[in-house]
């Protein structure tokens, strides 16, 4: 018996020395390294160029504000717009994904999947144009209704915008933009739910909805979280559509339907950069660094949640 096992170590030693393997290892390692270097390069650039903007005194920059006072409302606006987008998009995305994976007839589901993917291919400037030319004027009566009937809630304290260029409109546009990503990932994960789990639930007398609740959702939870976080990443960084739709000011307010809205970091950079010079440019780059950090934190949080849950699910 022992003599039969003897050749194995020799074989194992020979395998990694094949030149094809080595070349491929080099290529893939190089590709991985490029990603790291790019990321490091961006981080170094943002830090080096941003620090003078952070330390600049209030009268050296165009805004006339110290950096924390300048970037605070922008961070708030960025998070607010992204949260609105997620709150609107995730339930719809889960519904659409569930319909495609478990409820619709087979032929319809492939058409649906195709249409959703198509949404992801529309450039953001087109969403922006749609938002400002069609959505904003169309939604004004709805804002007026919110103000008249729900005005006691701080979110709808008004006075309602006459043009519809509010952060809620921007959030709706963002929601539509993140919908395809979240839907596509949710659909894939729902489809991976083990057949046996589902059939077991049905065999125990569960209705379809109960089966989805008992078998599909627990299995897919971490996948839904990571899908949402990917969507959040897109919403945080979206520039063009927000810049076109939003009517911004440097404020912090819970009011979603007035014409005075907090701006997002990305859109503020896009709007201010062309005419900026000197330390104002550094301040803008520093705000970009803040966005970079926020996006990083969001991704880490998503990782942490997915890792914590991976023992309970098969989505890994």
């Amino acid at each position, binding site marked *: 018996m022992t003599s039969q096992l003897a050749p194995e170590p020799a074989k194992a030693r020979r395998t990694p020395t094949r030149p094809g393997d080595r070349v491929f290892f080099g290529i893939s390692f190089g590709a991985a390294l490029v990603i790291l270097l790019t990321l490091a390069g961006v981080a170094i650039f943002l830090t080096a160029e941003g620090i003078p903007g952070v330390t600049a005194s209030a009268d050296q920059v*165009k*805004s006339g504000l110290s950096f924390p006072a300048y970037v605070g409302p922008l961070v708030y606006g960025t998070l607010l717009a992204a949260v609105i987008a997620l709150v609107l998009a995730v339930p719809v995305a889960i519904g659409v994904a569930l319909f495609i994976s478990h409820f619709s007839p087979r032929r319809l589901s492939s058409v649906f999947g195709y249409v959703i993917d198509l949404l992801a291919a529309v450039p953001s400037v087109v969403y922006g144009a749609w938002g*400002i*030319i069609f959505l*904003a*004027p169309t939604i*004004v009566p709805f804002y007026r209704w919110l103000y008249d009937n729900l005005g006691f809630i701080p979110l709808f304290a008004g*006075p309602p*915008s*006459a*043009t*519809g*260029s509010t952060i809620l409109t921007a959030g709706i546009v963002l929601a539509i933009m993140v919908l395809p990503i979240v839907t596509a990932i949710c659909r894939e994960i729902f489809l991976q739910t083990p057949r046996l789990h589902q059939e077991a639930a049905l065999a125990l007398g569960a209705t379809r909805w109960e089966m989805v609740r008992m078998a599909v959702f627990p299995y897919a939870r971490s996948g839904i979280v990571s899908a949402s976080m990917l969507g959040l990443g897109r919403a945080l960084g979206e520039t063009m559509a927000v*810049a*076109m739709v*939003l*009517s*911004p*000011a*440097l*404020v912090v307010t819970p009011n979603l339907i007035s*014409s*005075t809205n907090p*701006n997002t970091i990305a859109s503020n950079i*896009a*709007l*201010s950069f*062309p*005419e*900026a*010079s000197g330390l104002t440019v550094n301040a803008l780059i520093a705000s970009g660094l803040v966005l970079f950090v926020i996006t990083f934190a969001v991704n880490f949080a998503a990782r942490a949640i997915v890792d914590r849950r991976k023992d309970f699910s098969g989505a890994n």
Partner: protein
Amino acid sequence: MNRTTLRVAAPAALALTLALGLSACGASNEGGSDSGSDSSLSGTLNGAGASSQEAAVDAWTAAFQTANSDVTVNYDPAGSGAGREQFIAGGVDFAGSDAYLDDDELAQAKERCNGPVVEVPTYVSPIAVIYNLDGVDDLQLSPATIGGIFEGKITKWDDAAIKADNPDATLPDTDITPVHRSDDSGTTKNFTAYLDAASGGSWTGGEVETWPIKGGEAAQGTSGVVQSVANGSGTIGYADESQAGDLDKAKVKVGTEYTEVTPEAAAKVLDTAKQVEGRDATDIALDIDRKTEESGVYPIVLVSYMIGCESYDDAAKADLVKGWLEYVTSEEGQKEAADKAGSAPLTSEFSGKVAEAVKSIKAAS
């Protein structure tokens, strides 16, 4: 980085176009035809600066290159500040700017030029006060009222101040939504400069590029403001007159009359403007008299300059800059910009002064 590449690339490109241009000339001489232009200008002219002039520069470039087939004009609409910076650093041959060089910049620019700077107004664009209000199409506003509206103090269209300006109009009880630019812009700077000077204290935001008042509606770019004003009802905004489309434009009170926004009325501003003192004869920097009471003058205008050197080391470059600016400020060039970009042509009295300054451009001796 940009500058250094430009510095390296520009002479190379110049040499290449020169060589190509010469060979083209030779060919046309042999054929005895007049396919080559009759001008002696050739080479590449690089400029950067104000985006307000972009449409006009495009029109000028097309016409200038047609007339001088061996010339290439590049203009990077990077913004006024960037244009002045690049010009001072020597990265570009001329700059376009919505503001004249301030004293610091002028000193640096003189150093770059080894001598006087040529600074001439090339592009005058009226800024219209546009509004969208059902049932009112001949609105008249005094500067104090405009200031109050954009400050957010006057909030209803039937406010007493607006009624006083429009005794004959029936004004509705609609909320006013003032729309301003969300991006930094020379249009905002000129509009607030007007309010600051003429509103008599009802505007407190000063003269700024970034909108200073919290409140009101903001929109990106001229097109965004026009779109927002059109979208809402009871909206009022400011935009380049040529971009205002079908929207109603308010008449603005000057002296005792209300002046309609027209290119002719806007161009007259230059005649009432005061030249900044203590500068070279070639430096026509203008302080616009926003408070003018002369009838027929429309004081809300954007005046944009082109900035070059009086002397260039390279004779070909000097001829090129001179030819370019001569064309741009000529009656023909100004008409081209008026047709294509909706600007106000320089008045004939004023263009004489400008031509004098441009004529002085020469090769360094």
